């Protein structure tokens, strides 16, 4: 952290000022938390009995949320596998020696990166039926995730392949390997090691995006919470609404934080790995384009 450069080691006066600011800052944070808690408490949302429904197997809530989590993870897993395979194919296509292939593949990649993911999903869900193809919410969600992420991953793969030192492919051609062999045996194994952290980071993005299933009615965590609320409301009123929403949101956040930690760990490990030695750091080109390099 470069922070210490921005301020001197505080002297007695500054220390006193910082201490006062610290106290005021902490008080402000505590005040906000207290305000939220008081408001929640006044509305009876902190009642332990209201929260116990989340852990009571008789209510069916834990099971429903667990299944919803599995459905969320399933979409993310299936989406990731297909997006990775197609992305790999597109990346190789974009690096092809044949101009027409290169142009076509580039067009596909840029198109899918330029439009919002939700538009892709809506196109599959609302536009395709007009053309006589009807997809389930699951297929539309997974399809959208695959189409969008394969384009993002293709760029990541391409950056990774290009990051392998040129001497590697030259040497491979030198000992008489064919193009496909160079890619398969020499470039990809080295590139993948380097790309692993970025790949896992993209998996986090994909998992986050699976929550879009809520909008088209796929029963992932949020939609499941909503439907549980709709199920409970006639009998108990709004008693459990807030609790169910918080639970669904928290599960998403926890799973994502765990995956992010995994990404950090992998990055830390691969940084010292001697096997990735012949590659440069994978840096996606930092020029702004329509597509926006960052997927957030």
């Amino acid at each position, binding site marked *: *952290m*470069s*922070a210490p*450069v*921005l*301020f*001197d080691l505080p002297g007695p006066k500054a220390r006193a000022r*910082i201490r006062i600011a*610290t106290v005021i*800052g902490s008080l402000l944070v505590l005040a906000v938390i207290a*305000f939220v808690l008081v*408001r*929640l408490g006044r*509305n009876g*949302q902190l009642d332990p009995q209201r929260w116990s429904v989340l852990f009571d197997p008789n209510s069916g809530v834990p099971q429903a949320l667990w299944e919803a989590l599995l459905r969320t993870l399933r979409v993310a897993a299936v989406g990731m596998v297909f997006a990775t395979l197609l992305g790999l194919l597109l990346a190789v296509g974009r690096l092809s020696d044949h101009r027409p292939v290169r142009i076509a593949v580039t067009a596909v990649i840029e198109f899918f990166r*330029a*439009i*919002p*993911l*939700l*538009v892709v999903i*809506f*196109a599959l869900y*609302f*536009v395709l*039926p*007009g*053309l*006589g193809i009807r997809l389930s919410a699951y297929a539309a969600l997974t399809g959208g995730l695959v189409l969008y992420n394969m384009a993002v991953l293709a760029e990541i793969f391409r950056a990774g392949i290009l990051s392998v030192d040129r001497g590697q492919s030259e040497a491979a051609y030198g000992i008489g390997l064919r193009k496909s062999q160079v890619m398969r045996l020499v470039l990809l194994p080295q590139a993948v090691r380097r790309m692993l952290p970025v790949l896992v980071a993209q998996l*986090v993005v994909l998992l*986050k*995006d*699976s*929550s*879009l299933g*809520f*909008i088209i009615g796929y029963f992932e965590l*949020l939609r499941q919470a909503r439907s549980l609320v709709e199920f409970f409301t006639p009998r108990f009123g709004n008693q459990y*609404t*807030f609790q169910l*929403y*918080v639970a*669904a*949101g928290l599960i*998403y*956040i926890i799973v*994502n*934080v765990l995956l*992010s930690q995994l990404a950090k760990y992998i990055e830390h490990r691969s940084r010292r790995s001697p096997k990735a030695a012949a590659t440069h750091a994978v840096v996606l080109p*930092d*020029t*702004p*384009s*329509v*597509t*926006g*390099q*960052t*997927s*957030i």
Partner: protein
Amino acid sequence: MVQFFIDNFPLLRDAFLKTLELSVLAGLLALVLGTLLAAFRVSPILPLRGLATFYVETFRNTPLTVVFFFIIFGLPQIDFAVGFFTGAVLAVGLYTAAFVCEAVRSGINAVPPGQAEAARALGLTFGQSLREVVLPQAFRTVIPPLGNVLIAMVKNTSIAAGFAVTELTASLQRLSNANGGEILLVLLAVVAGYMLITLPAAYVVSRVERRVAILR
């Protein structure tokens, strides 16, 4: 088909303007809040640092849909009900602020330490050296990544479609019972609408970048 387009043109135009409005308002909120958070993250006051770090880590790991969800359905629980459009601005703005903060912070870290040291040596306070010396330089290096974050944000405003805001993506859902050729036309119009925002935005960003570029 032409007739269909003419009939629905007002709807598409309003939807486009809604997306534009949402993008501009949320972008402003994200820029202001994100810069503030970045200043917090490098400040000498520990609770502020902790608060900003917590904010960024939480929002970066939360799906935008969940943020929407909490703002639309959660805020009423603490007696803060907001309208759908206001909620959308808040959700997209608060979410993007975390990414703006990270971009600005990496920019602050990219400013050579000598600059901050010189500012300190001249007797500027933390606020002054940040305001007068470090941030103006940081914003220059940070313009390309910031542009990327904002362009991604424009695409993210589409999620408001799921929360009763009739912006571009929602018009796709609205007109979904049109026949095959017509709905394809709507899809094209929607895609074109997003390009109409992101293409000029990318152009402006690259112009600004060249304009303020400094030699190091």
